[in-house]
């Protein structure tokens, strides 16, 4: 019998998180080391899962399947394919680096890491779920700790508001999707929550068209789709660094992934029917998000809105409903996850030292923290879709997919590239170059080694994927083929 790798990946965080609660509260050092151990295990195993995935074999691998509630056809069923295995890896990476950059948290680190790890289990769980009930189960686990993490450790000015807004938005979305999921379960007549069974259920076209919006948009709330995106920038800004990383880096992908896995794959006819609307909304995401980002003066809001813009590209990719577009969206999820984690990590480093995020008040930070500056520039270039970095590798197929479905959208969405270049360069210029204001001179400490490791890992991945896309593209493409097999057509 093979080792249950995925189960270990999923449950390692929560086990470590629960054990953390039994540590004496004041042993900060031990708590951190223990947390890092847990994160390392999760990362190592997700790497293992990623690289042992056998492309030639295809399909779902590392599958584990146990009955859970047999009466209702609910089972614990996990597995990875080309679409979700990069996301599992992404989660492992963000978790690991998130712990590294949170080394300095002094206010109740035990609870902080504990909740963060519970969140991580939820995220892992959603990605590997092959059972609809299980997916919802982990989905909710992933949403709630966010509230506490933001409300307790967040930015004092907006944290209560932002945390509440975020949780309620996401909860509303998920329960609406939940009803849709239940409707599918009962309509299928299969008495099974297995995604495979539901894929083959053969729902009528009318049924699919009616329920698709509930399921898709319910999940897409977490993916940040316009006009229900505005929880996201507020949440990003209020959250502490590691949580912003998790939030923008991974959690938004959970929403997008679930929208794809449940919405599009189970209700393909509905997806075809609603695709024009989704394309329209996502285009607004992309362009409007970039535009709003460009007029922000708060460093973190810029990144927050840029996430809205980039997640719009993911949803655009889904909505193309063709192989290239979905492949691109899959890569974009990974790429944007790493990129945005990196950006928030740097923002956090700057804020920790300057205690302000007002862009006009900052300047010259590259002199004291060159690595952070370079890392941010790399992330910025990724964000601009600059070739040679992962963003290009991801966005290019999305646009190609758009050409095949709605060329006009491709042209409109492309405007965002110029806007993005504008605001990214502005931020880089103002924050990292130029003269450092007098008040900071001599007060800014260099970043520590943990931060450096985190930054190097994240930027390294962005470049690696950029120069050698074949490390991820064939995987995601195989996953996208599975989607296309259900959606049908070109």
């Amino acid at each position, binding site marked *: 019998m093979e080792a249950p790798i995925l189960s270990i990946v999923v449950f390692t965080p929560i086990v470590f998180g629960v054990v953390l609660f039994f540590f004496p509260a004041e042993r900060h050092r031990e708590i951190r080391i223990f947390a890092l151990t847990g994160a390392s295990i999760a990362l190592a195993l997700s790497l293992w899962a990623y690289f042992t995935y056998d492309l030639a074999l295809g399909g779902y691998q590392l599958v584990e399947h146990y009955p859970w509630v047999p009466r209702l056809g609910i089972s614990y069923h996990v597995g990875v394919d080309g679409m979700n295995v990069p996301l599992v890896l992404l989660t492992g990476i963000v978790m690991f680096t998130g712990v590294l950059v949170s080394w300095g948290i002094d206010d*109740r680190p035990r609870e902080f890491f504990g909740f963060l790890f519970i969140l991580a289990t939820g995220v892992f769980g959603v990605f590997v779920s092959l059972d609809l009930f299980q997916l919802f189960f982990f989905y909710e686990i992933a949403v709630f700790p966010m509230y506490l993490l933001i409300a307790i450790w967040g930015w004092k000015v907006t944290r209560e508001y932002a945390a*509440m807004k975020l949780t309620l938005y996401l*909860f509303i979305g998920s329960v609406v999707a939940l*009803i849709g999921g239940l409707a599918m379960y009962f309509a299928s007549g299969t008495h099974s929550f297995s995604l495979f069974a539901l894929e083959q259920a053969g729902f009528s076209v009318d049924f699919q068209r009616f329920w698709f919006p509930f399921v898709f948009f319910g999940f897409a709330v977490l993916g940040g789709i316009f006009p229900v995106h505005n929880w996201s920038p507020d949440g990003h800004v209020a959250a502490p660094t590691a949580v912003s990383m998790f939030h923008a880096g991974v959690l938004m992908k959970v929403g997008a992934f679930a929208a794809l896995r449940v919405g599009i794959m189970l209700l393909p006819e509905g997806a075809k029917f609603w695709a024009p609307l989704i394309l329209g909304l996502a285009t607004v995401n992309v362009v409007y998000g970039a535009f709003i980002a460009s007029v922000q003066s708060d460093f973190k809001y810029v990144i927050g809105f840029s996430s809205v813009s980039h997640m719009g590209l993911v949803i655009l990719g889904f909505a193309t409903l063709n192989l290239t577009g979905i492949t691109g969206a899959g890569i974009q999820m990974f790429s944007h996850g790493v990129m945005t984690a990196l950006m928030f990590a740097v923002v956090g480093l700057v804020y920790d030292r300057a205690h302000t995020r007002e862009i006009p008040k900052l300047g010259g930070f590259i002199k004291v923290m060159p690595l952070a500056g370079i890392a941010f520039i790399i992330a910025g270039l990724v964000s601009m879709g600059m070739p040679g970095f992962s963003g290009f590798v991801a966005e290019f197929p999305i646009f190609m997919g758009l050409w095949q479905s709605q060329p006009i959208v491709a042209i409109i969405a492309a405007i965002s590239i110029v806007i993005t270049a504008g605001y990214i360069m502005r931020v880089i210029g103002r924050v990292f170059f130029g003269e450092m204001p007098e008040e900071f001179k001599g007060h800014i400490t260099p970043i520590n080694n943990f931060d450096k490791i985190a930054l190097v890992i994240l930027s390294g991945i962005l470049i690696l994927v950029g120069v050698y896309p074949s490390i991820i593209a064939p995987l995601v493409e195989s996953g996208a083929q599975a989607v296309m097999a259900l959606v049908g057509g070109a």
Partner: protein
Amino acid sequence: MSIASFEPSTLLIVLPEILLLLLAGIILVVGLTSQRSGGLLLSWLTALGLTGILIVTLLFGRPGENEVLIFGGMLRHDWMAFSFKVLFLFVAAMTALLSADVEGVEDRGEYYALLVVATLGMSLMASSADMIMLFLAIETTSIPLYILAGFKKGDDKSTEAGLKYFLFGALTSAVMLYGFSLLYGFSGDTNIYRLSEAMHAGAVSPWLIGGMAVLVLVGFSFKISAVPFHFWAPDVYEGAPTPITAFISTASKAAGFAVLLRFMLAVFPAIEAEWVTLVAIMATVTMTVGNLLALPQTNIKRLLAYSSIAHAGYAMIGLVALSSFGTASVIFYLIGYVVTNIAAFAVVILFARSVGSDEIVDYAGLSRRSPGLALVLLVALLSLGGMPPLAGFVAKFYVFAAAVESGWIWLAFVGVLNAIIGLYYYMTVLKVVYLYRSEDEDKPIAIPRSYALVLVICVIAILAIGTLSAPWLDWSINSALSLF
């Protein structure tokens, strides 16, 4: 289904009830003789006694393949009754443990005796198959509870609670009794399983049946504190000794549901569509009103009171589904709700013991003051809010699933939207607990052993029900099947 002639084995079926009566007697005696040793002894005695009965019930009280009517059709021995009995015994044992140290209660044997008698009444409620037996059982439950609610004689609020509870209870009982008498008048029978046949015959106008259904619903609604018969709940919850509040909000409510399920399903198939619609509307109103009124509360007991009203509404959704799965989901919901609510009240009791306050603002800094207690409250409130991997999530999931299965999509949506309002105010409490600071953070909160035991049991139960729901669901479905 057959009416068994009296045999010695019949006694085995009512063994739990007999033992309960015995236990009440023993408690009274011990209470009189051991004035000095205080409440600890009584509380443990009661708890252990109830646990013993629980074990006996589990071992010997298990119903067979077929349901049997005993005592000339007065009681029905089936899975439904069995499940609820187990539930009541569990809650009573927990309540006894929680009562150990409560002011004005600790050394009073009659307190525990009344608790046991109320439990006895509930067991009978769950198994009554005859209107007369049912009414008696309800009163056996209610009267001890009226007294218990007003048990703290020196406390005006407690006295008010007792009186209010009594007045409301008496009034609704009267209405319900009127309904019973009409039913008897039109059918000439008191056995609820034979009533439906009489109703079916077409002799009675549907309008009349509807009227009777409304009348009995009034009585049941009072028990489960459904809107608009909920007005007593917040005041009683706030005024009663907190363990009793916990007991009323869990066991008593569950007993009400046991009756509601059995009675409505058995007696009124003739006007199924109508009463289901009525219950659906009631469920909607109950959830919405309960949740909306919970929002502005500043006292945690009142907040939990309104939340418990809302929870009655969620559970009613399962009844509306009118299927075996729907009924099972109600039972499952109650199981999950009961363990969760006890945990919540246990924290409230402990906090009040040390701090002397039930105001939410005073919970500030709890997470630093007693991280463990804060964590239990977190688990309990999140479970109430319907978050996985806790009992409340699965419970809500099944209830909504039942609604969707039967085509009550709009009701499911009402339910989930209400769940969001619920989550909002639970989080508001958690925000105070985790986010706000207070000056008393260095003062620890004492947790006596009996309380710790309750906390541990409940938290484990919440997690177990939430993650491994299969056996509990099977049990619930078994119970539900005995009603169909």
